[in-house]
């Protein structure tokens, strides 16, 4: 298995290098398709050979030690950041990268780095297994989808210089970085992969190289480098105090003293990467990148690296003040971004806020750290990855067909793009109607919060109650738009036929995945997520493992209802009567007699709760609040302990 893992890291890197040289689509497409297939097979094989153990540790094949390779990688990454930063006259990012490198060189030069255990470089357990499958399957599906999307994207925006070779190269390097990250056990090595994902997301966000996207790219870079500094500082503290740099040993039980301080810094890094407040703005800015980038950042990579680390650290912070404060950063983020999301009209941004909110729930779970909440956290990771990847890809497809991201322009989508609508409905059902996107996860989280002693428990339940209702509101608005119907012209119907087969293939596969995983929730819980929680917390998650058959049937029915309905309705001839307009229909159904004579076309607009909820203000309040809690968390870990 160790060679398979090494292959999963090395192979996408090689493909990334090859793709950089390929500028012709006719050559690129087969390479991307074939290597995606190879990665999917290899990641499934890696999981299949894992067996039933709780976790295995291994080194590089043939006992090779990393030696100076880690430091060399850090120098290369730093050099790249410094060069790009200086070329764009941005100095903060190069400065942070240099400090980071300085720490590493100092530790190495002064002999503070402890001896590496070459047999414990990697750690593969059920959590890594889940992550490897998510990256290997969902990540590659997004790469394939991008083949179709990027073609249309560049057709629609001829002003943007096509550098698709760079784009696809970055996607594969990103996957390599993620594979490395989720199987790392040796912290300095994990940091290298951590910085690779930071760098890749920076370059992907800035792909179009407009002033706007360059600004957002540097925002993402700065925030994630800050998190990286936290990671580096944690390594420095641990090395200086002659403590372990072995992640599994670090998180085998509650941390205390200096170790808790280092863990708090690692939590800080996880929070920046998972775009929790006050660092949410980088992920919102990332929305301006092409949709496959968003899909990748939101579902299978980047932000998932943040929550992955936090779930890893969860056993070390459970029960401590640090843990509670981490939880409040997550839950606070969930509440505030949900408030912002109800006022947002850009569909991609709504999806982004929903991602940040779902991640907030995971962070909340990791902070409290009970076996039940670890179970919830992993479940949200799985279902969110599937549903969100699907939704971003579908929105990308819609965007390339209708040239809009505005939710208000999505009305009568079911009539205009029927098959795309069905896929969108599967995604939305997976995200919020049925199982783990939200409902069961929220339910299980509330159940677990009931056992949190003192006022914290009550506040958490309050946050859940209000936050859940807000998510219902913004998903409801989007559903209304997608489900509405009208008579369409032949031309409008022909638009859908121009969706590329890469997009159909990948989006359908993800839709099948959403439905399949809902049906298989029982076995996944029994065989993967439950045993993971047991191994991490030395206690089996109670109550949640027995999902009643009745609940399962309801969930499946709820997931399937709307997509099946849409599928059925879109195949029926639309021959129905006009709606009621107080007898003031003029001409056609959508033209109405106006109050002061004449006629006006009816436009229907969702409520955005203007005057009740101020989105921009909520974003600021959330940022300040969560920043306060975050600072308190780090200070508690470092000073108070």
């Amino acid at each position, binding site marked *: 298995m160790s060679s398979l893992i090494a292959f999963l890291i090395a192979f996408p890197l090689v493909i990334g290098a090859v793709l950089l040289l390929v500028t012709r689509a006719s050559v690129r497409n087969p390479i991307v398709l074939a290597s995606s297939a190879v990665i999917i097979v290899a990641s499934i094989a890696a999981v299949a050979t894992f067996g039933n153990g709780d976790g295995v540790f291994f080194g590089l094949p043939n006992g090779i030690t990393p030696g100076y390779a880690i430091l060399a990688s850090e120098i290369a990454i730093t050099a790249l950041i410094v060069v790009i930063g200086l070329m764009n006259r941005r100095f903060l990012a190069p400065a942070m990268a240099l400090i980071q490198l300085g720490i590493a060189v100092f530790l190495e030069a002064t002999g503070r780095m402890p001896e590496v255990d070459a047999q414990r470089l990697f750690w593969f357990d059920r959590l890594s297994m889940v992550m490897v499958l998510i990256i290997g399957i969902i990540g590659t599906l997004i790469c394939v989808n991008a083949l179709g999307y990027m073609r249309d994207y560049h057709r629609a925006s001829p002003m943007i210089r096509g550098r698709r070779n760079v784009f696809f190269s970055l996607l594969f390097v990103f996957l390599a970085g993620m594979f490395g990250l989720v199987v790392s056990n040796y912290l300095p090595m994990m940091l290298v992969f951590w910085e690779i994902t930071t760098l890749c997301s920076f370059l992907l966000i800035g792909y179009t190289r407009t002033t706007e996207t360059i600004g957002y790219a540097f925002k993402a870079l700065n925030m994630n480098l800050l998190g990286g500094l936290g990671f580096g500082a944690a390594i420095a503290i641990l090395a200086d105090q002659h403590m372990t740099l072995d992640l599994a040993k670090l998180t085998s039980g509650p941390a205390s003293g200096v170790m808790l301080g280092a863990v708090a810094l690692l939590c800080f890094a996880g929070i920046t990467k998972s775009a929790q407040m006050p660092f949410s703005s980088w992920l919102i800015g990332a929305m301006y990148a092409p949709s496959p980038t968003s899909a990748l950042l939101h579902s299978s990579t980047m932000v998932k690296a943040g929550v992955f680390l936090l779930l890893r650290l969860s056993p070390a912070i459970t029960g401590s003040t640090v843990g509670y404060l981490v939880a409040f950063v997550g839950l606070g983020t969930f509440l505030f971004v949900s408030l912002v999301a*109800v006022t947002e009209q850009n569909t991609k941004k709504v999806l982004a806020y929903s991602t940040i909110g779902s991640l907030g729930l995971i962070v909340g779970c990791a902070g409290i750290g009970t076996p039940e909440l670890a179970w919830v956290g992993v479940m949200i990771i799985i279902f969110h990855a599937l549903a969100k990847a699907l939704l971003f890809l579908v929105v990308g497809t819609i965007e390339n067909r209708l040239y809009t991201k505005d939710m208000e322009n999505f009305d*009568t989508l079911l009539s205009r793009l029927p098959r795309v609508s069905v896929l969108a409905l599967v995604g939305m059902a997976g995200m919020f*109607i049925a199982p783990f996107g939200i*409902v*069961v996860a*929220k*339910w299980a989280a*509330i*159940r677990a919060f*009931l056992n949190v*002693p*003192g*006022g*914290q*428990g*009550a*506040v958490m*339940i*309050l946050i859940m*109650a*209000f936050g*859940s*209702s807000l998510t*219902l*509101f913004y998903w*409801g*608005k989007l*559903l*209304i*738009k997608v*489900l*509405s*119907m*009208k008579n369409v012209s032949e031309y409008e119907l022909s638009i859908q036929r121009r969706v590329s087969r890469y997009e159909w293939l990948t989006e359908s596969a993800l839709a099948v995945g959403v439905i399949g995983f809902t049906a298989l929730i029982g076995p996944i819980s029994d065989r993967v997520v439950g045993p993971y929680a047991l191994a991490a917390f030395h206690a089996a998650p109670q*109550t949640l493992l027995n999902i*009643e058959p*009745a*609940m399962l049937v*309801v969930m499946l029915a*709820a997931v399937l209802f*709307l997509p099946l*309905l*849409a599928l*059925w*309705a879109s195949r*029926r001839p*639309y021959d*129905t*009567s*006009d*709606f*009621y*307009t*107080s007898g003031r229909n003029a001409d056609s159904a959508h033209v109405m007699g106006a109050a002061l004579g004449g006629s006006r076309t*009816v436009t*229907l607009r*969702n*409520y955005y*709760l203007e005057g*009740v909820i101020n989105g921009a203000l909520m974003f600021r309040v959330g940022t300040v609040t969560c920043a306060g809690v975050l600072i308190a968390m780090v200070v508690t870990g470092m000073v108070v302990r």
Partner: protein
Amino acid sequence: MTPAIYGILFVLLAPVFGGLLVGFDRIVSARMQGRIGPPLLQPFYDFGKLLQKQARQVNPVVEPLLLGHVAFMAVTGFLLLSGTDLIFTAFVFALAALFLVLAAGSVNSPYSFAGAERELIVLLASEPFFILMMAGVCKVTGESSFAGVLASSKLVAVELPGVVLAFLMVATIKLRKSPFDISTSHHPHQELVSGLTTDMSGRLLAYVELAHWYESALLAAFVVLLFNWSIALGVVVFLVAYALEILVDNSTSRIKWQLVLRSTWVATLLFSGGNVLALFLLGR
């Protein structure tokens, strides 16, 4: 008897209960307005009449969505009575209500759409309460099922007075009664004509009515959870509260949606939230 039988009994009997409740409502309202009012069974006659009438289909998704609305309302009741986790039931309840919003919203007409959006606001306003209420009931009794709460020796309402108070307000919203009936309007010549049911006719309207009966019965079941001495007591308390709702309905005028949302959230936060917070702080 296995718990599933209670669930099936709910599915069968809840419409009878809900229909009688509407009949009772119409008589009491009529008396308040100095009229005699229709017979008690009038809602059932109306229901039968609606089923026979021709339904005007505005688009093909409305009818299935309304059927989904009825089905999920019934399923919520089934799950509740057959012992599924109370908090999970609260989420399914919200999902059931959402189907009505989607049905009205899909029509794409000005009146239905406005009604649908307002119903969504009603959901947004009321949903936090139901989650908090269920969490509170679970916290007080340590139970997670309907039967468990009924068998508990703890008396829920005594420990959740704030929740009981907030329930009165939220029930008004859920029953779509004035001053919170922003999404519907049972009288002609008003701003929304007939709100979210504007473009529903014939059997479509019958489905809406049936779902509403289920919804009323569910609210009664929720009251039983709060007054868990016995089922009879819970139902009596519900009926008294319902009579109060009718009085409020007939003596107030509709308020704006902004005020509905704000006032409900403030009430939920202060009364239910404060109540739940106190429970946790007192270590119950």
